[in-house]
């Protein structure tokens, strides 16, 4: 019994490990997107990559107008955060003539020619003067082998404690930050704001339009007998699998004929009459019991009244499923807008098109591009959290046999 329980725990643990691993793989790109979209431009170029947005910590010290950046320095063998008060101090690199390997960088101002020092000839043939160099509190007689620039760092708690070291190789002290203003910035770029409203408008039209035509068509197929109905329905079914790519060129020509190229109308009207939506609604309406409808007909109700008062309220879940499906399609579509809305006509761009433009214009600002990507990805995610059920059902309904 005990070993059974143990093996069960083991199996469960392995199960959760597998599931979590996959979940991480699925989530990581999105988490990366959000984290990066909050970064400063410099922060996106660090290697090794840092996940969370970070920036230089600063501190305000008396006597300095601007906040001072903090760096890690070695003070008495301890790693401490010091503030950089001055940088670019001219300095020399000094070493013992007999041991050129261990060198010390010291500001030129602190160095004096050694009393009675004289000159030394180095192995490479250059002649250097011996200097008195203060190193860790002691004065040493060294020669200058190179020049550099140093930064002056002070202890924020006791500004008399000073340390000089090379700024470039110092490890900056950082803290986690967030720059949500990236989103505002990107909305102001490349017509993003307008394309967001365009996308919303197009999506509303397509979703509402498709629901109306699908509900009416689905009702006709499910409940009304007319000659040729079943053949027509088979025809509808047969076309569901036909890929959109087949239509792209003739539909483009049709739009040219209508004068709808570059116009939002071309993103709306061709997409509100679908076989799939009609099929989905028909499948649902066929399950509604007939007796209520017949009673209503007896009472003299018209077909429109029956559809509006009896079928529509019952069809709320099916409608929501259709709406989510259509929403995703309209919101995410890229190929058709790319073809039909000219690159030059910014006014009528939708989000995906603007993102494509942004990719070229801001190619080195990962933070801005990914903020743009987040703007296009977030609305479906929010809707998904609100109505997860309908998304899952719309996925499953595409898998119904038939």
């Amino acid at each position, binding site marked *: 019994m005990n070993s059974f329980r143990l093996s069960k725990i083991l199996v469960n643990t392995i199960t959760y490990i597998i*599931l979590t691993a996959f979940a991480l793989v699925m989530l990581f790109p999105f988490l*990366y997107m959000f984290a990066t979209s909050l970064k400063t431009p410099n922060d996106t170029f660090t*290697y090794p990559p840092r996940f969370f947005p970070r920036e230089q910590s600063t501190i305000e010290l008396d006597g300095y107008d601007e906040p001072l950046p903090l760096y890690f320095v070695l003070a008495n063998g301890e790693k401490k955060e010091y503030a950089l008060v001055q940088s670019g101090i001219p300095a020399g690199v000094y070493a013992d003539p007999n041991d050129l390997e261990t060198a010390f960088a010291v500001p030129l101002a602190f160095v004096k020619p050694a009393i009675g020092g004289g000159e030394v000839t180095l192995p490479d043939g250059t002649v250097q003067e011996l200097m008195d160099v203060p190193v860790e509190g002691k004065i040493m007689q060294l020669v200058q082998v190179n020049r550099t620039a140093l930064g002056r760092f002070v202890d924020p708690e006791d500004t008399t404690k000073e340390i000089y070291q090379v700024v470039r190789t110092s490890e900056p002290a950082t803290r986690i930050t967030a720059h949500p203003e990236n989103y505002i910035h990107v909305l102001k770029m490349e017509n993003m704001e307008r394309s967001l409203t365009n996308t919303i408008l197009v999506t509303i039209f397509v979703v509402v339009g498709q629901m109306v035509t699908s509900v009416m068509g689905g009702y006709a197929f499910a409940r009304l007998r007319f000659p040729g109905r079943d053949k027509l329905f088979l025809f509808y079914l047969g076309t569901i699998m036909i890929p959109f790519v087949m239509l792209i060129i003739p539909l483009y020509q049709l739009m040219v004929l209508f004068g709808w190229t570059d116009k939002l109308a071309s993103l709306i009207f061709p997409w509100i009459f679908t076989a799939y939506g009609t099929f989905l609604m028909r499948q649902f309406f066929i399950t509604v019991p007939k007796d209520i409808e017949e009673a209503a007909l007896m009472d003299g109700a018209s077909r429109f009244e029956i559809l509006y008062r009896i079928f529509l309220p019952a069809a709320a879940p099916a409608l929501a499923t259709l709406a989510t499906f259509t929403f995703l399609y309209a919101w995410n579509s890229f190929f058709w807008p790319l073809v039909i809305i000219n690159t030059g006509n910014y006014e009528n761009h939708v989000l995906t098109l603007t993102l494509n433009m942004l990719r070229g214009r801001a190619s080195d600002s990962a933070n801005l591009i990914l903020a743009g990507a987040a703007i296009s990805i977030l609305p479906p995610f929010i809707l998904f959290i609100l109505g997860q059920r309908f998304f899952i059902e719309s996925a499953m309904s595409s*898998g119904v046999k038939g």
Partner: protein
Amino acid sequence: MHKDAESTNITRIETFINIVTGWHFFLSFAGLILLFFIIFKQLFSNLPSWLMFIGTISIIFLVGTSFFAGIQLRKRTRVGRTISLVINYLGFIFSFIALLQVLGVFLGVDALAKTFGSGIGWLAGVLAGYLIHAAGDQFHFRIQIEELFRKIGKYIALVFFTIFLFRVGLIKALIYLGKQIIIPTNLMIAFLVILFGIAIWLMWREETGIYLHRNNAQTEALEGYLFLSPNLLGFLIFFAFPLVFSFYISLTDWDAFGNSNFIGLANYLTIFRLNLKPLASATQNFIQVMDGSIYSELLRFNLFGKYFVLGAADARFWISLRNTLVFCIVTVPLSAIPALLLSNILNSKIPGMKIFRAIYFLPSIAAVVGISLIWQWLYNATIGYINYFITLGLQFINSIFATSYPIALIRWLSESRTALLAIIIVSAWQTMGFNTVLFMAGLQNIPKELYEAATVDGAGRWAKFWKITLPLLAPTTFFVITTTTIQALQVFEQVFIMTNPPGSPGTSTLTIVLYLYQNGFQRFQQGYGAAIAWVLFIVIFAVTLLQFRSQRRTGAYDV
């Protein structure tokens, strides 16, 4: 009884029917005159030929049916009413759409989009009104409160919607429409709409119906077509017609500007034109064996010690076909097999299952464009996470096993060996969760009793998976594989976004749809592009058929 009233009634109906009869003869006659002008006087000859063809056919059809309707109406038959209603309804719809088009209503969407941003906030008020309306349901035990909520909700929504309409420029739009409609040609179309409308009203009336012996079947059929008509008409115009039209385009050398010549199957011949020639040596120059102005080199190979070279008139097409098939063959199992595994784990009623399912589903609802942008940065050679993780992994392995695998930064998207693989990974990642949900739906259809019976018989986990789950899941598996394959054969957006220029490096990520796009919309050889679309369709059809047959052979159980 009311003899007089009845007889005046009948005279009225008779007059109405006579009016409509006259209308149909008039329509027929007008159509004939129009035909005469089109054929002999070159009216509309500046329109493209295919449009002339369709227009002429529909006018002939109108002349015939309208004449027939007139004759039937004179005989006062039921059929006459049906045909008359159909003709007038179609006339009404098409002239109404034409009116909207000439008034600029469809293009008005652009103007709406311009002002939509300033009114969008008010739509939130409409939503709030709806929510209040819906909240009334909570009080179904107190009918007054329920009614109150609904009323308030309705008014709030209405008020906010009105404000919204004014904000986005309702008045401006109305003024514009008013100016447009007084243009004489527009006024004529509006008049036509009204005429068709009146004809419908005269025929549809209860009295007319009864007088012309309508029955339930006729009413139901008319209502059926009425309900289906918005969808059916739109479907015919925006789907069925383009589908047929696309085949016609593929037989021409159409460029996007409307110039076209019929060239028969020439486009298809160019696509499929191949030539195989033996080579004297492995490195012999291609132009020495084949006409370089027609063929370009596709591949060389060695067969039984002899070298051959294969030339194609359109080598890029064959390369794109190969890339697409490779993409498909790797992506489909890569997204379906993990999905099968995950769905089986998730199906075992463990706590937290819904959360995992939701997480797996996320990638499939995000825009491909957005996802491609994310992965483009993940694939970045110097600062991307993919290389970073690989580096970490190699360092770990090297330190554990004391090996020394070299750590090189892979330039995923700009090296021809890895570019296609990079895109495969993204696509598999994106479709996996969706497939998991599909498999879960299939698993729920398998009767639990089967597993219980198998457990009683002492079957283990694996035995149950192989003997029950897999065979009974076959229809779902078939569906998953088919849809994923069809999608994979159309891969475009990922390539377009992630590789720069699309299809690079070289031709290593050139896919069929990308090639179609380049032909149709960058080189504007739309005839050739349409032909590529049909070849792709045949490939998709063949693959589906193949999978369908293999599913039949393995004998999927129908559950």
